[in-house]
């Protein structure tokens, strides 16, 4: 059929057609505001971040230490068993060197961002975060890193209470 169809539907517009109002249009911004309940697990997680600590939940059935913490184990489908602190050191699992900000605008100083698996949690359990005190040429998968925390009085109970992860220094564990 595709060979038999002469004209395929669709009227293409240019940016000017749209943005300068050359075709009739309406504009709108929805009123869409939220306050998500963090719930049992994430409220505690945020409270501990504010205190400068990372906390996880253990599942006794599959013997995993789950981070970020949750009140149920997705593997066993049962409630998790206990709270446990984990360390703020870890390993870069993957990363990107981004020249884009949230709105896809170009930035000249790239953002180093990636996933860190954290020591003390089960393998591969980690979080997304920024990297600092390293250049885009130094960063690599497998690099050992440590969290750099904001000063206690600036912490708000947010993943941003960690400023970024920096490379572990010589002799540091």
């Amino acid at each position, binding site marked *: *059929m*595709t*060979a*038999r*169809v002469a004209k*395929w*539907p*669709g*009227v*293409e*517009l*240019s*940016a000017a*057609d*749209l943005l300068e109002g050359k*075709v009739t249009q309406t504009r*709108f911004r*929805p009123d869409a505001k*939220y306050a*998500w309940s*963090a719930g049992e697990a*994430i409220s505690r997680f*945020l409270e501990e971040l504010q205190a400068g600590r990372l906390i996880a939940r253990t599942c006794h059935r599959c013997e995993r230490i*789950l*981070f*970020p913490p*949750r009140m149920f184990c*997705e593997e066993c489908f049962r409630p998790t068993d206990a709270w446990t602190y984990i360390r703020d050191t870890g390993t870069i*699992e*993957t*990363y*990107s*060197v*981004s*020249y*884009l*900000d*949230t*709105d*896809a605008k170009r930035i000249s100083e*790239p953002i180093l*961002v*990636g*996933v860190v698996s954290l020591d003390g949690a089960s393998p*591969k*359990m*980690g*979080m*997304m*975060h*920024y990297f600092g005190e390293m250049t*885009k040429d130094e960063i690599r*998968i497998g690099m050992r890193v440590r969290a750099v925390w904001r000063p206690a009085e600036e912490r708000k109970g*947010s*993943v*941003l209470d960690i400023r970024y992860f920096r490379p572990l220094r010589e002799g540091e564990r």
Partner: protein
Amino acid sequence: MRKVGVIGAGMTIFRRRLQETGKEMCFEATRMALDSAGLSIGDVDMVVNGTAPDAFDGVHMKGEYLLDGCGGYRKPYTRVFTGGGTGVFSTIAGWWHVASGLADVVLVVNEEKMSSCQPHPQSVFAHIWDPILDRPLKPNLVWIFAMEMNRYMTVYGIKKEDIARVAVKNKRNAVGHPCAQLADANITVDDVLKSEVMAWPVQRLDISPPSDGASAVVLASDDFIRRRRIKDRAWISGVGWCIDSTMWTDRDLVFPEYVARAAKMAYGMAKVRDPRREIDFAEPYDPFDYKELHHLEGLLLAKKGEAPTLTREGVTQRDGDLPVCPSGGLMGVGNPIAATMGMKIGELFWQLTGQAGKRQIPHEVRTGVSQAWGDLMQYGCVVVMRA
């Protein structure tokens, strides 16, 4: 289990901006699919709509909004939504409407109008992340691709030029596609490697563009197909779908296990035992070039880490042993998320019925597989179709 066939397909052009409203786009694709099947709206029992985030079109409950354009007026109509997976998933939902015996003829209509959102559809992608764990870091969607691509490259030692070959192949394949937004007959690996770095390792030409577009397919039961003596049909012989855990920072991103599970489900139903030998061509989801490779491995069409070799050796070219994305894929035709059904399901139908025109695979093909991927690197869905 009733046998279900695809008997018609249609799609709009894929472009950065279209003047049509979302429902007008749906109408155009649907009208075309019905015409190609030789049916009228009165023949349609039920309608399935697939469309991805409401925040693109900028309409809450946009399945309801698009309904009349999809031919759903006063009919049973349902929207399904599995993120980027919707492009193939809606056909799976359509399949169960017919295979269950509840409907004889079902329209599946997919749509995305990404140009409504200002200043850029990327602004809306910010809302797909966990609000507490991820959003404070102000992530850009490209990051997840970059992080997954980097891990895939690093673990298997894959070179960027081997990934760039996918972009080149698909953009060249798209030259024969009348709806294509980014076809390029002359693009080279060097062009891709020299394109602007967005979020390393992702460069501009590694990415499919945001687009507006709609597509539609018509599904029917074998009874109906026999009764109406419909000649152009391709059978849906296997379906599979699977979601992985939400906690994406807890997963090894190197292999899409969820795609493999969906593929095994579909192959099991289609009685495909050795996919690499029994599948003649594939339309895996390729919003980024490396995703085609990642998904070929998930579809068990290449061993882990070996998909780049197939591309390098020309196996996945249109005239190769395993043509991959003969449509031109998302990389070449465009990426109006759910509407990519036009390449994933539509192309299988057109190829298997010998209607693909300039894109027709030169040798005989009898079994094809299409796949889509979505959510936070966690959704896989697979459809196997036979001539």
